[in-house]
């Protein structure tokens, strides 16, 4: 496959960026998208040019590091996959592919296609955990949890924090991410004691970091590589309403 790539290049957070066009030739359809960029970078290094910077780690679709906005969609044209799991067979020979970094005020660009997603970590630090005192390991069956509920909590917990929800949302809202992180604990008895405090603190942090407001377009749900459902946002809204109206916290 021969392809034309239009890639966002930016030296650092403060410099002005621009799109640069590259040609890549003889790409196998079985190549993954990131491998295709590796091939491009090898060519650039050979020509003593700066390689294109992009985030990646496990390349198995589980770490949440990779994230590119490809032809108007986060993680590209395939549904339910991360960028590293996208393969070139999804494109046609001669295609022009535009690659952009995640665009959101709370995700500043570090270089080229790499963005700083530590805003997500800051939200988690506000309450996306269960406080436990150290001691003996509790018995696994001490707290009975219905299977369906455990499955739902697991579905919410499958969020890898890649930021595709923010990237796809027209408002750069992080409601699906925060909704999933609130839900995974709200669904389990272990998360109940801190539920009211958690949802209020995490939402306040999300707002303070400058994420947009959710307008329920559900682009986040459509683009999430882990197919996190919008019901997580509704659950967070319920939790928030209950916390504000019924809780002492």
């Amino acid at each position, binding site marked *: 496959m021969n392809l034309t790539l239009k890639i966002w290049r930016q030296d650092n957070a403060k410099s002005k960026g621009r799109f640069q066009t590259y040609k890549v030739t003889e790409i196998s359809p079985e190549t993954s998208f990131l491998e295709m960029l590796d091939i491009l970078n090898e060519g650039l290094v050979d020509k003593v040019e700066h390689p294109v910077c992009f985030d990646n780690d496990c390349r198995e679709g589980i770490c949440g590091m990779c994230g590119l906005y490809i032809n108007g969609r986060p993680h590209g044209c395939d549904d339910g996959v991360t960028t590293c799991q996208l393969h070139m067979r999804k494109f046609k020979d001669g295609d022009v592919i535009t690659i952009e970094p995640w665009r959101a005020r709370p995700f500043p660009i570090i270089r080229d296609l790499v963005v700083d997603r530590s805003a997500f970590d800051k939200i988690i630090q506000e309450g996306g955990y269960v406080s436990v005192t150290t001691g003996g390991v509790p018995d696994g069956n001490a707290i009975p949890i219905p299977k369906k509920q455990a499955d739902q909590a697991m579905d919410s917990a499958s969020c890898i924090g890649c930021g595709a929800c923010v990237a796809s949302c027209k408002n750069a809202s992080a409601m699906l991410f925060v909704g999933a992180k609130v839900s995974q604990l709200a669904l389990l008895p272990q998360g109940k004691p801190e539920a009211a405090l958690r949802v209020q603190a995490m939402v306040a942090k999300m707002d303070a970091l400058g994420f947009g407001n959710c307008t*329920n377009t559900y682009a986040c749900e459509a683009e999430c590589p882990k197919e996190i459902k919008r019901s997580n946002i*509704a659950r967070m809204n319920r939790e928030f*309403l209950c916390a504000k109206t019924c809780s002492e916290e």
Partner: protein
Amino acid sequence: MKLVQFASITKKMALAAVGLFLLVFLPVHMGINLCILREDGGEWYRNACHFMGTNYIVKIFEMVLMATILLHIGVAIVLTIENWMARPVRYKVVSKSKTHFMSRYMIWTGGIIGCFLILHFINFYFVKLDIVEGKYTAEIEEVDSFFQQKAKKMQSGELGEKEQAVLVAQYQALSQLPEGKLDKSGKSLVNLSKEEVKKYCGEDFEAEPDFYTMCKEFFKNKYYSLIYLLCFVALAFHLMHAINSLAQTFGLNHSKYNKVIENFAIGFAIIVPLGFALIPIAILFLGF
């Protein structure tokens, strides 16, 4: 980076709550409007307008409604500006992500409805507030008792010469009432200009706006009707997402009733705007 320091979910819930209030008001307004289509010369519609214009509970409701509209518009603008601020550099390629029908265009369909409201207020509400001149109606019974009071004053010699002449002129004008100034039941004077109110009812008579005649006049203009219909298409699109969005914002999302909410949204968003649209369609095309 927030314009208003309330939590994003609080602002959204405020928007949804006032939206729900407006949603409930729409079928009420539609029901009153549909009275125009009764072939009774506007008796029902004028009675409904009279009730809405004079009942004290309705007057309080009217103030709440105005505040609700302003709050809905205000919160929507704040949320939209904050959302634009959240993405200062936009993507080069336009988003190809699947989204809920019309959800991307809520601020624009809302803007069209807002412009329509301005036009609607100028045409109707401002007439009620006596800022803009319209057409007026007066019940014969009220005109008569107003006239009798003045006649009594004339008999007891309380009126000056000029006032007496005006009263005589009013009597003559009423006895030679031209066609189209009496409603079908013969109980009310209708289609009166401000000058005609003075002529037939007396200088200081307080006539009510004749919304029935005004509606008919407005909708006979095909351009006005077309604008009206387009605005209600925008309302239909706005409602289609708004009802689903409202449920989601209040946390009402469950596989057991999601389909019910979706179908209700589609039904409401079609039936209510269609109810409003029937009036210009009937006047323009069916000759009501």
